[in-house]
């Protein structure tokens, strides 16, 4: 980054951090959002809305436990409905955070420093939402713990051949790793808050979580190698999670599930929707909390490019599905293809093609990449499209499988919709709280973006943009 100040000429791009900032201005600006900024009416109003949405979720779950999964639209043949669709969707969204923090960290993409923090938070909340569904979609949720291997008097164990058990391990591992990853990223900033907080109680609380961090060179040394190793571990993990999720389908024999393209195409889709969600959140937040200096157009544009790229991979996935439908010569696969275009759910499929492939192509134009309004809209469309994709994969495939007599239809009930809306409420509720209690941008990593942060004699080892 330092290159910017030394030889600004070659790099015409918008800097990742607006000029004129010093260590203390950065620190002030970000930590004050948490420590000094008064709670606005808008915040409270919004919180009430999202919190009541979250309570709708609680109500739905309560009713679900009382009545059973029959309150949803699921049936035979369509044994999985919204629950699994939402699960896959949320997990997908939950990929951006760790991806940004881990993979971009490995690639030394320092521009990530200004967005990784809340991207990671978003990941955690998304995974939390996702985690609800596999649990409650079971017929007897109170026995869901049977999916974990634990010694029991029956001497009976889970079936390690089942993708659902893989899911349990993958998702819980992902949640844990993302959590610790996020937490150790927070430690130095918590120390900052500890030292800046005036309210003794806050001092205590932040101090408790800061664990006595004092920025010793030795600590930083270990800290950095630990962080790097975590990034190294999280990178294959983040790729594996959606791969495993895709196995839920790819391991099955249902036409439309049983394809080898799924893992890469699911991962791409996950990153796709993940970045869409990051943008959907970042764009409003940066303007509300005046963080345009730290989350600059550069970030938005780069994210838009990532979306474009992953979007194209997803498009390739769709194309391969179609191609195999024709090439495999399996009449079940070719019927699948026919059914997507002509079947009862054709509108979902066409909508999917439009929102996931067609519309995002405008991102080739810089105009759309830099205009926040457009970008937000496109990201939103992509989120919808990715939800539709999961709907197609889960429900439409099941509605027409092998035996004609057992073709069926799926009609979501109001409980399906309310549960979905409820998880969105829960997600936003967590976001709402997060922006108020924790630094939503990694302060110490921002400091590193300043030229002063770099010692000349080490210029050789310096980060190239």
């Amino acid at each position, binding site marked *: 980054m330092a290159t910017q100040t030394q030889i600004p000429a070659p790099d015409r791009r918008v800097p990742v951090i607006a000029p004129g900032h010093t260590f203390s201005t950065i620190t002030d600006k970000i930590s004050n959002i948490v420590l000094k900024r008064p709670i606005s009416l808008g915040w409270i109003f919004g919180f009430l809305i999202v919190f009541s949405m979250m309570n709708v979720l609680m109500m739905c779950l309560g009713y679900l436990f009382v009545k059973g999964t029959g309150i949803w639209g699921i049936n035979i043949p369509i044994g999985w409905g919204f629950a699994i669709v939402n699960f896959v969707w949320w997990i997908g969204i939950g990929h951006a955070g760790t991806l940004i923090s881990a993979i971009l960290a490995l690639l030394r993409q320092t521009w990530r420093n200004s967005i990784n923090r809340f991207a990671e938070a978003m990941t955690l909340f998304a995974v939390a939402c996702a985690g609800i569904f596999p649990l409650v979609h079971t017929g007897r949720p109170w026995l869901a713990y049977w999916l974990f291997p634990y010694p029991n008097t029956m001497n009976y164990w889970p079936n390690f051949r089942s993708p659902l058990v893989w899911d349990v391990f993958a998702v819980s591992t992902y949640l844990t790793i993302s959590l610790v990853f996020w937490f150790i990223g927070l430690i130095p900033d918590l120390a900052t808050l500890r030292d800046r907080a005036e309210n003794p109680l806050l001092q205590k609380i932040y101090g408790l979580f800061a664990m006595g961090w004092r920025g010793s060179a*030795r600590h930083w040394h270990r800290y950095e190698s*630990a962080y790097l190793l975590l990034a190294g571990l999280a990178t294959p993990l983040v790729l594996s999670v959606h791969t495993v999720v895709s196995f839920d389908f790819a391991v099955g024999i249902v036409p439309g599930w049983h394809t080898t393209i799924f893992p890469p195409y699911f991962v791409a889709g996950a990153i796709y929707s993940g970045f869409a969600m990051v943008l959907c959140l970042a764009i409003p937040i940066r303007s509300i909390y005046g963080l345009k200096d730290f989350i600059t157009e550069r970030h938005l544009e780069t994210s838009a490019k990532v979306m474009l790229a992953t979007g194209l991979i997803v498009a390739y996935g769709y194309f391969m599905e179609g191609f195999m439908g024709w090439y495999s010569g399996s009449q079940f696969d070719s019927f699948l293809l026919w059914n997507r275009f002509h079947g009862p759910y054709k509108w979902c499929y066409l909508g999917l093609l439009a929102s996931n492939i067609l519309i995002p192509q405008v991102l080739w134009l810089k105009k759309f990449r830099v205009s926040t309004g457009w970008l937000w809209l496109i990201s939103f469309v992509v989120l919808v499209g990715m939800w539709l994709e999961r709907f197609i994969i889960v429900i439409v495939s099941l509605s027409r499988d092998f035996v004609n007599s057992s073709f069926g239809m799926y009609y979501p009930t109001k409980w399906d919709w309310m549960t979905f809306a409820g998880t969105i409420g829960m997600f936003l509720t967590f976001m709402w709280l997060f922006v108020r209690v924790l630094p939503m941008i990694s302060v110490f990593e921002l400091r590193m973006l300043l030229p002063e942060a770099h010692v000349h004699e*080490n210029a050789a080892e310096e980060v190239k943009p």
Partner: protein
Amino acid sequence: MSMTTSRDVTVYESPIEGSPSYGMMAEFDSAEELMAAAHKTHDAGYQKLDAYSPFPIEGLAEAIGFHKNRVSLVVLIGGMIGGISALALQYWVAVITYPTNVGGRPYFSWPSFIIITFELTILFGGLSAVIGMLGLNGLPMPYHPVFNVPAFAKATENKFFLVVFSSDPNYDAARTKAFLASLSPRMVAEVPS
């Protein structure tokens, strides 16, 4: 500046008057100054010293003579334990303790066991990275003598500190103070223990 005044109070009121000092602290304005100072101090033969900065500075640790840490080793061991135990569990369950015919697959259907083995490797590796790092850093440690220096509050914002510990054989309150002062710091203060 109410903050600092309040800190001053704490200094003077602290009951550690006359007690053996923990070390000598010098405050610097920039990373470069700190780096230079660290080098000089180390070259001057001080072993037991530490530097504090609001963000990681490359080479600083080396400058104070701290070259390699064992975090990666911990992670390696953790990861291996995770992977092996995962595979062992699955093998034991599927082949030894309760073999069942599931979908006509052999008892030891290894391809199915790869995923969980992988996931647990990551999980154990990741956790041991965090725990190892904190453990080796001796964290959590809510109290530490350096916090007694009021100015040190800035160590997490924009100031840089160098401390020579009194446990250093060459440490002598007066001489060390003079030496540090010679590095043109912003200030030099004794760290009470």
